[in-house]
């Protein structure tokens, strides 16, 4: 199929940037979206042009690096997939495809389609962990009784890959789905109880300091999340935060 790509090009973090149009031909439906970009970059390099910079690592939907906003949606029009899992069969011959970086003040563009998501790392550092004695006397996790429901819900929350699609999709650039998934995966388990109060307070504080917006419950994050993280996690974090606030 033949396509017209409208891609955000930005030389560096300080460049203003602009949408540049590239026609591309000979794209197969079985190609992944990133393979299509590889072909474009081959052409650009052959012609002596600067290739389009985009993030990618595993190309199997688990690293969360391929942060592209495609035709107005994070990771494109398909559901429960990352950009590397998006196939070109989702588009039609002659389509015009807009490809932009994830937009948020807390995700500054480094170059072209690559954004700096270290704000997520700083949120995680502020409380997304449990303290474990690693002196050799660590208790076997399987010896702690955990209900099936709690284990399942914690696992569902832990499937968040931190790709940032929630932030990109939210009209307010809110990071609540990501942070709530990270809070929930510990809040649901006994191992997470010791630091529960500090965890939610610190992570929310860091989230606010990074400049993410407020959650207005549009639900866009849940729809666009490649891992199907539920809004229930945000409600759980709200409860955790309010009860932690009262405890001080």
């Amino acid at each position, binding site marked *: 199929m033949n396509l017209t790509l409208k891609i955000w090009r930005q030389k560096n973090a300080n460049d203003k940037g602009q949408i540049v149009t590239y026609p591309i031909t000979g794209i197969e439906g079985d190609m992944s979206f990133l393979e299509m970009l590889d072909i474009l970059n081959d052409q650009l390099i052959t012609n002596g042009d600067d290739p389009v910079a985009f993030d990618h690592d595993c190309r199997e939907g688990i690293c969360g690096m391929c942060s592209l906003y495609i*035709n*107005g949606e994070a990771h494109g029009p398909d559901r429960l997939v990352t950009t590397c899992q998006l196939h070109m069969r989702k588009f039609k011959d002659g389509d015009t495809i*807009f490809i932009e970086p994830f937009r948020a003040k807390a995700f500054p563009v480094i170059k072209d389609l690559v954004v700096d998501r270290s704000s997520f790392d700083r949120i995680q550092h502020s409380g997304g962990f449990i303290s474990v004695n690693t002196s050799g006397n660590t208790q076997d996790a399987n010896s702690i009784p955990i209900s099936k429901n709690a284990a399942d819900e914690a696992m569902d929350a832990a499937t968040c890959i931190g790709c940032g699609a929630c932030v990109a999709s939210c009209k307010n650039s809110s990071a609540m789905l990501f942070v709530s998934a990270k809070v929930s995966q510990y809040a649901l388990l006994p191992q997470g109880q010791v630091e529960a109060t500090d965890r939610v307070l610190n992570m*929310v504080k860091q989230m606010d300091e990074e400049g993410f917006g407020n959650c*207005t*419950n549009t*639900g866009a994050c849940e729809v666009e999340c490649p891992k199907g993280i539920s*809004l229930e996690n945000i409600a759980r*974090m*709200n409860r955790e935060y309010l009860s932690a606030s009262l405890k001080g």
Partner: protein
Amino acid sequence: MSGILNSSIARKFAMALSAFFLMFFLLQHFAINVTSIFSADIFNDLSHFMGTNPLVQYALQPVLIFGVVFHFVMGFILEIKNKNARTVKYAKNNGAANSSWMSRNMIWSGLAILAFIALHFYDFWFPEIKTKFIEGDMSGLIDANNAESGLRYYEELQHKFVDVWRVVLYVIAFVFLALHLLHGFNSAFQSVGANNKYTKGLKTFGKLYAILIPLGFVVIALFHHLNH
């Protein structure tokens, strides 16, 4: 507790609490107004009670005004903060693919409701304050010097809805109110952390509330316009 009142979650919690209060007030306002369709006397008696009872006038009314002002001021603050969180807009954004129009445009439906409140105050609240607290007439009578003249509230209500343009403006405002509530009702529950086995039923109830209450107000306005 330091800094908590400035947190995004605490702000949304406060927004939700004021929303619960306003939704309860709306229900009470509707319950009184709807009596005007069935009985002028009951409407007059209830209006007189609400307009002259010291608890309502000096305790509940200031709380209500604070609730309204807090809700829209906090709404503006959150909107400005949210706009600042994305300084470069998308060239192409397909919001309809993942969220409802109502949820993405609460600020606009809210502004329409705010404009309506200004009109509603001009129509009813300011004249009430003038009559009661400036002219000092707390009688609630059509003619303060004639006890036989009857209570004035029903007559004032009917008089207001003679003009068709006012009815049109009220109907438009109630449409925006319905749109605001269609997202706001359940959003408030999510903001206070209530997402559980009752959520599905609550969503249905919220939709019914969001449609039936504004529709009821429309019916009342049309009834008095057509039956004057």
